[in-house]
Structure formats: structure tokens, C-alpha cells
């Protein structure tokens, strides 16, 4: 009997050797076919949770189950793929795009790591999926920020990871590539994988995540985006870190077509409506939500 894919984190507490408790009593569950955001400030335990899921740290209490198995058991099936932060990688390393993606296949190869026809096919297919085929012979340092991200995503695909962990996937990535990556993540979700994205970039979360895990030394809330991503919860998770721009009585007139334009230099802004509900950029694809809101206020 094959267990359905899921991440079950129950009452996990992680302490570092110096006695510092990085995470206390964290509990959440992710089902297959979701894109989930792991949101919290720096030092809130996001990377500790990642490490616990990958089995790099051992919780002093609680358990992490992947598809019903312990992390150690599931490692044999190469279930978890990790896409590192851009800063974690040594880009001067003499390896090509092809070499890096092939590293995703190592776990599937024999003792000597000699690539089979199947390995090569998977690498080609993964490169094609992220649109990096023409760059396959480039040294990795010669790529742009977005291309670098795509290479490591291709490695996760080549590994055939069913649980894909991404660490800050949109830092240093231009807007077009960001859209392309989001598109790809959606396609992966629709194949039934679990995508878990660690980020402190709040504005991007409503754009592509359907599930949110809010962390601050523990899991504060976990659930569907609309339920968890509220002003109250975010204030709890971020404390005084967030900068608020409250348009108390804004100058928008009806003849402006009720349109506001927000400019930021890098990260996407997160916009809440009057009652603390999330605002989205487009109505397109969210007709249900618009209808629901209309009914709520009795329009």
C-alpha cells in the first residue's frame, strides 16, 4: 500500500548543541498538490524546519513524517529535493549547467555514478522544462539570477523530487523569470507534488501559494491562504518588523477608476482591504472571491 504524499510535522522541537531552542512544538500538515509558503522573519526557524524535513537536524522531540515514513527511510527514495538560496552556491565552481542538473541524478546512479541513457534523458527533459536547454554547456557563473534559479529547479526535477523545498526563490530574479518560475511551480503542483517555499517576501505569497505556514520560533498558523494570511496573523508573525502604509482616507477618486499604483524597488507589497482581507492584483481567476465578497457586504 503506497502512502499518499504528505508532510506531517508533529510537535517538533529542535535545539542546537549550544542549547538554543530554534523551534518549539511545531505542528503542521501539508497534503499533496499544494504550493505552500513558509513565512517568517529571519531567525524564526524557517531554515531549521527545512533542515528537519531534510533530516539534517534531529528534533529532540516530535516527529517528521514524509509520505508516512520517517525522514531517514524516505531518503532512500530521494523524495525531497532542495533548491538552495543563490548566495549558498559557489558560482565560480568549474561546473556547467548540464553537470549541475546531472547531480540531481546521482542518488539514482550506481556506485561509480556513471550516467545511463535514462539519466541523460531525465536531464534533457528537466532542462527543457525550465527552458535552459540552450545554456547547457555554460559555466554556472555566466548565468543571470533567474537562469541560476532555473538550473537548480531543473536539478530538483531531474532528481524527480516529489517534495521540493525552495529557499527564497525570487531574490535576485527579474519579474519575467519570476512569472515563469511561478508557472512551472503551478504545473508541478498539478502533478501532485508538494512545493514548500521559504520566504520573507510577503507580497509574492498571495500570487502563487495556496497554503501558508506562519512561523515564529513555532508554527503560529497553518492552513489555506485566505484563512491564515490575515493582518492579525502577520502582525503576530512579524511583530514590529513590518512597515505599514495605511491609506486612512486616500485621495483615490471614482474618476481614477478606483485604481492605485504601488511602486516598490524589489519586493512585492502585500495589500489588505478595509476589513483586513487580502487584495489581489487581478480579478481574473478570482471571480469566486469577488462574488463572495459582494455577498458579504450585501451589494
Amino acid at each position, binding site marked *: 500500500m503506497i502512502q499518499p504524499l504528505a508532510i506531517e510535522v508533529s510537535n517538533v522541537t529542535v535545539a542546537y548543541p549550544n542549547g538554543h531552542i530554534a523551534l518549539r512544538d511545531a505542528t503542521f500538515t501539508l497534503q499533496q498538490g499544494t504550493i505552500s509558503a513558509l513565512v517568517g522573519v529571519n531567525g524564526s526557524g524557517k531554515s531549521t524546519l527545512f533542515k528537519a524535513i*531534510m*533530516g*539534517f537536524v534531529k528534533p529532540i522531540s516530535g516527529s517528521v513524517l514524509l509520505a508516512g515514513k520517517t525522514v531517514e527511510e524516505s*531518503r*532512500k527514495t*530521494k523524495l*525531497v*529535493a*532542495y533548491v*538552495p538560496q543563490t548566495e*549558498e*552556491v*559557489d558560482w565560480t*565552481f*568549474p*561546473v*556547467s549547467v548540464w*553537470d549541475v542538473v546531472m*547531480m*540531481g541524478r*546521482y*542518488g539514482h546512479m550506481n*556506485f*561509480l*555514478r556513471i550516467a545511463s541513457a535514462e539519466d541523460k534523458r531525465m536531464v534533457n527533459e528537466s532542462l527543457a522544462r525550465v527552458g535552459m536547454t540552450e545554456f547547457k554547456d555554460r*559555466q554556472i*557563473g*555566466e548565468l543571470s539570477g533567474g537562469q541560476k534559479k532555473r538550473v537548480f529547479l531543473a*536539478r530538483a526535477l531531474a*532528481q524527480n523530487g516529489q517534495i521540493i523545498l525552495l529557499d527564497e526563490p525570487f531574490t535576485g530574479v527579474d519579474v519575467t523569470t519570476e512569472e515563469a518560475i511561478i508557472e512551472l511551480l503551478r504545473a508541478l503542483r498539478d502533478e501532485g507534488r508538494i512545493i514548500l517555499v521559504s520566504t520573507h517576501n510577503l507580497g509574492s505569497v498571495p500570487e502563487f501559494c495556496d497554503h501558508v505556514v506562519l512561523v515564529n520560533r513555532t508554527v503560529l498558523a497553518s492552513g489555506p491562504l485566505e484563512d491564515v494570511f490575515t493582518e492579525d496573523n502577520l502582525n503576530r508573525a512579524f511583530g514590529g518588523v513590518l512597515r505599514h502604509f495605511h491609506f486612512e482616507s486616500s485621495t483615490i477618486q471614482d474618476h481614477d477608476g478606483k485604481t492605485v499604483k504601488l511602486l516598490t524597488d524589489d519586493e512585492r507589497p502585500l495589500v489588505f482591504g478595509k476589513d483586513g482581507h487580502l487584495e489581489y492584483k487581478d480579478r481574473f481567476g478570482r471571480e469566486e472571491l469577488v462574488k463572495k465578497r459582494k455577498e458579504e457586504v450585501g451589494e
Partner: protein
Amino acid sequence: MTDLLTPFEYDYMLKAILVSGLIGGVCAFLSCFITLKGWSLMGDALSHAVVPGVSLAWIVGLPFSVGAFIAGILAALTMGWVKKKSGLREDAVIGVVFTSWFALGLLLLSLYPSHLNLKTIIFGNILAISDPDILQVLIIAGISIIVLTMKWRDLLLYCFDEAHARAIGLNTSFLHFLLLALLSATAVAALQTVGACLVVAMLVTPGATAYLLTDRFGKMLIISTVTGALCGVCGAYASYFINGSTGGCIVVLQTLVFLLVLFLAPKHGILSLRKLRRQTTQTMPQSRIEKSGCAS
């Protein structure tokens, strides 16, 4: 013409040339990992830290390489332990530990002279290498080559992205230890050729040279190994004519090759970078220059 062949008429020269070439090649193979992993200082430390092992092995009657190898590993473990317990920076820890081990070695060697005298250990004396010592070098080199050719891909992944290596089930603690063990073993093998002081050059320079010449790790391994072996052979050969220290000849030769490559390498050489910069300044605005500088 016949003058050029005279070194080959002497048995000891022939042995010296061949052993130098072999050790040069093995060290150079390993140097690709050492330079990329950022372990150059570690290589220097281990090559000095093996010295007390030579003396202790002599006292208890073991082959010198066994003692030296164990001393190297112990020194590496001490460094790891001190670093963890003290919270000092790595360079400080290496500095403290390797000098203590080296000092202990000097002390032991002065108190209990072994078959290798202090000068041989520190500066090398390949011309006087004995047959049993050649056998030890052959065994170390053979094992190192076999392990490296079988496991280079795993070691590469470990050096490049440890987290991924762990995530797909590679035993990274084992790979870490394996690299340390290979480093100690080759440092021991190179001890008699160039001496403890210059071993680090054999373990770094060929890798650094090859790095400037290619962007592919596979090619880097080949270029580095060939350079290392050729410098070993040619250096030992040349030392006959100039009547100089063999170790010195080998390392000076390696350095000359490195300097040549540093200036003339087709892509990463100083001259071609300068040329590229000139071209971009002529055709592109300021921002583009920064970029091409980063890319190379």
C-alpha cells in the same frame, strides 16, 4: 645530445624522476578538490602535522607512512575538536594546532633520530629514497588513484553542494573523512620528494593552474594531473643539471607554469581579461563592464 641522457644512466636519478612524476600526478589530482573546497591552508597544516608520526613510527618499528598518516588524521581531528570547543576562527585553529604538532615532531626527531633525518623530512631528499620507502609511496599513490577515480564525482558534489549531497543520501561525513584521509596520505607520500615545507605547493598549485584554464571539472582534473606529473618529472630531471634541490626545482617549475597560465590563459588570464575589458569599454556603457568582470 648524450649529455641530456646522462641522468637516466644513474639508477637513483631514474627512480627519483619516476617517483617525483607519480607523486606530482597524485597530488595534482587531489589538488583540484583541495583548491575548490578551500582547504589549501588545511593541506599546509596536515603536511606539517604528519612529522611527529614519522618519529613515533620509527620508535615503535612501523613503516613511517603508517605513523605519519595516523598523525595527519589525528591532527585533523584535533583541529575539528578545537574549533568546535573554542569557537575560534578556522585559520587561528589551524595555526595553533599544526604548529604544535610540527613542534612536537621536531622535538621527537631531535631526541630520537629516525632513519629519516630532520632535513630530509622538512626539505625532502628524493635522490636518497630507499626501496622500502619507494614501495610505501607506490602503495599510497596506488590506493589514492583508485579511490579518486572511483569516487571523484561524489567528492565533487560534496565540495560543490553539501546540502544536496546529503539530501540525496550521500554519506557526507564519510566523504569529508575520505578527503581528509587522502590529503594526509598524499602529504605523507610527498614528504620525501619535496619535504614538509613544500608539500602544500604540490597540493595546490597544479589545481590552481588548471582552474584558470578550464570551466569544466573533468578537464580540470586531467590538466592538473598532467601538469603535476610533468613538473615532477622535469623538475627532478632538471635538478641533476643545475645540481639544486629536487623539491625546489619541482615547485619552482610548477610556479613558473602557474605564472605563465595566470598571464596567458585564453579566458581567465590577465591579458585576455584586460583585452576583454578594453573591448567592452569601447563598445558598451559602464554597467556592462562590471558584468563581464563578474562573469569570468
